[in-house]
């Protein structure tokens, strides 16, 4: 683990020499090759939410979780690469909010910048929280603390601070390039850590057939029973999946979240930029095996129980061999323990009195179960790496948006470039401090995925509608976009306040206005909330746009589909063109879906 930290910070130092201008710091000089950006693209997203969250969802919902990839991510990635990249990259905007200013107007940009800044800090905080909890649960620092005489309760805080400091160091020094390079490193490390786990786990449980036999039938099928919400574990139905996940949430994230777009915009030219999301889509299709399977395996394995083995020795002595299993493990299922509130030490219960399962522990427990010392260090480092890459991506997105879109636009215009470079560095510090604060708020959810999806749905779903309208219709106006965004976000919040998943208590899970509808699960509530948000934004934006004056076409060249000359790809061999790659990716995704239907 130490080796990894050394290298990570080392890369930061090495890159410091190149960080001369703010362009270098925030945009990696716009000079990186496509394969690096492609891998970083997917790695930035491979934070806590992917590795732990997907394992947790795999344990909770089964193979259906793969829909996040097949429907939620792949089509959106293809779309953004082929259709939206020309606008993002071509406009030379330095951030997504800036693109909004170019296309619409200042207030739209301001709104997006503020909400994005908040959201990205929230995400970073969640990553930190997850990492700290993990360190706590895996007892990594217990020995050290004991020797130093510090209270064990301090481990949580210590982990948060440690992760914050390391990420801070390498971004402070090397900017976006450092983050991107480290993300690629983390990508390979994650594979190095998790591939052996999946191989061992599958071997242990008896291969694919053995896994099928140990978990409920629906867990092994992606599409089984999706026509009605009662027949599949996620409690959603095909419209919810199709529209909510695929169209809105998935695209909302992949097409507009600056976290990922920032990585693509750092590429060296337009062709590379367009290929980045497509390159990323390839490993993305295969990752379900790496991250979802451990979750499935965890639930499929037999639950350890406190047991007594009585043997009679040859000299007549009767020996009771008691292996004690902690209560939280016994209350759980397979390798997934029941959820314990870290502050009180008691098991948490859901609305019907059953212990809540701590699905987030599925993957970490798998690591502990199968890895002997040595490779266990590698597995844990891979896990930590995934958190840090998530955090790093959020922090770089935050410091860029803060410096360009908030500071430069509203607080201090026209300063020297060195000034902004310095501001960017301090924004990094500020962003990390804020993340630490939000880390403590994440304690109330039993699955990180749900938390993140909730936050995203509030902010992202409406956003995608704005971009779609902006890029493909020249009639959309600034006023329309602005009001649409507000209406969409309000709709998301309203929806959340009025509905509640069946097994939850009112409060942070919803229903804080009054409950007029129950959803079978958190996930379903999220998806439908996204659909409402998107539609509201769309409708309001269109209506308001029709009532206000659009900008003259001359100003919109290069920003709207109909007014932009198509970049000529004729000089590339046909199989190198982004379109061909996109089609190949889609075909691959469809094939996987059919195989696991």
């Amino acid at each position: 683990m130490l080796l990894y930290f050394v290298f990570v910070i080392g890369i930061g130092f090495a890159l410091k020499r190149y960080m001369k201008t703010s362009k270098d710091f925030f945009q990696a000089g716009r000079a990186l090759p496509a394969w690096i950006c492609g891998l970083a693209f997917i790695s930035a997203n491979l934070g806590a939410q992917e590795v732990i969250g997907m394992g947790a969802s795999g344990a909770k919902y089964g193979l259906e979780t793969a829909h996040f990839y097949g429907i939620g991510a792949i089509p959106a990635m293809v779309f953004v690469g082929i259709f939206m990249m020309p606008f993002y990259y071509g406009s030379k905007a330095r951030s997504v909010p800036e693109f909004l200013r170019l296309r619409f107007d200042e207030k739209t940009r301001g709104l997006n910048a503020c909400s994005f800044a908040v959201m990205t800090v929230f995400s970073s905080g969640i990553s930190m929280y997850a990492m700290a909890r993990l360190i706590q649960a895996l007892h990594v620092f217990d020995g050290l603390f004991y020797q130093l005489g510090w209270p064990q309760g301090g481990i949580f805080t210590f982990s948060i601070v440690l992760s914050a400091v390391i990420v801070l160091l390498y971004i402070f020094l090397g900017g976006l390039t450092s983050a991107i390079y480290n993300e690629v490193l983390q990508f390979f490390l994650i594979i190095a850590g998790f591939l052996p786990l999946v191989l061992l786990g599958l071997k242990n449980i008896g291969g694919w057939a053995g896994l099928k036999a140990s978990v409920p039938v629906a867990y092994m099928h992606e599409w089984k029973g999706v026509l009605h919400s009662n027949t599949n574990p996620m409690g959603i139905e095909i419209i919810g999946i199709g529209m909510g996940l695929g169209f809105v949430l998935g695209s909302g994230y992949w097409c507009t979240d600056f976290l990922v777009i920032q990585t693509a915009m750092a590429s060296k030219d337009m062709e590379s930029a367009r290929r980045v999301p497509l390159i990323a889509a390839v490993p993305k299709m295969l990752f379900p095996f790496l991250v979802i399977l451990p979750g499935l395996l965890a639930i499929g394995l037999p639950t350890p129980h406190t047991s007594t083995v009585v043997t009679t020795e040859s000299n007549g002595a009767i020996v009771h061999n008691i292996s004690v299993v902690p209560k939280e493990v016994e209350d759980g299922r397979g390798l997934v323990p029941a959820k314990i509130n870290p502050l009180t030490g008691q098991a948490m219960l859901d609305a019907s009195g059953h212990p809540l399962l701590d699905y987030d522990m599925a993957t970490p427990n798998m690591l502990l179960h199968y890895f002997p010392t040595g490779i266990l260090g590698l597995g844990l480092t891979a896990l930590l790496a995934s958190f840090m890459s998530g955090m790093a991506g959020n922090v770089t997105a935050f410091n860029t948006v803060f410096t360009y879109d908030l500071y430069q636009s509203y607080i201090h215009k026209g300063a020297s470039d060195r000034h902004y470079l310095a501001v960017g560095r301090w924004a990094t510090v500020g962003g990390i401090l804020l993340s630490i604060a939000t880390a403590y708020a994440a304690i109330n959810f039993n699955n990180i995925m749900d938390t993140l999806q909730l936050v995203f749905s509030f902010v992202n779903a409406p956003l995608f509608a704005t971009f779609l309208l902006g890029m493909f219709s020249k009639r959309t106006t600034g006023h329309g976009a602005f009001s649409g965004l507000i209406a969409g976000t309000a709709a998301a919040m309203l929806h959340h306040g009025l509905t509640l998943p069946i097994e939850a208590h009112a409060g942070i899970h919803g229903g804080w206005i009054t409950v007029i509808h129950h959803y079978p699960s958190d996930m379903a509530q999220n998806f439908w909330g996204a659909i409402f948000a998107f539609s509201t934004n769309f409708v309001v934006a269109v209506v308001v746009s029709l009532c206000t004056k659009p900008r003259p076409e001359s100003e919109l060249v290069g920003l709207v589909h109909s007014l932009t000359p198509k970049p000529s790809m004729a000089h590339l061999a046909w199989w190198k063109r982004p379109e061909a790659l996109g089609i190949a990716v889609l075909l691959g995704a469809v094939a996987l879906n059919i195989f696991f239907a």
Partner: protein
Amino acid sequence: MSLDLRIPMGLMFTFVGIILSVFGLRTNGDAALYAKSLGINANLWWGLVLLVFGFTMFLLGRRRQLQLAKEPPPAREEGEARRGH
């Protein structure tokens, strides 16, 4: 950026591979340790895999680095005019 990522990355994986393989070799007969991983000496095998991977990356990176060093430096493009947005 003149720093080819494959060099530090290759180095890191090579070291990790070496550490794991050596540790795996030394604990080869230890059944209790490897009961968890179903009796397979995970350290040794995976260590070797990583070692090969890391070294390959490193070599590829070095080759590219040497290639680039031979070419004339690229002309300074319009990056100057673009500063201070």
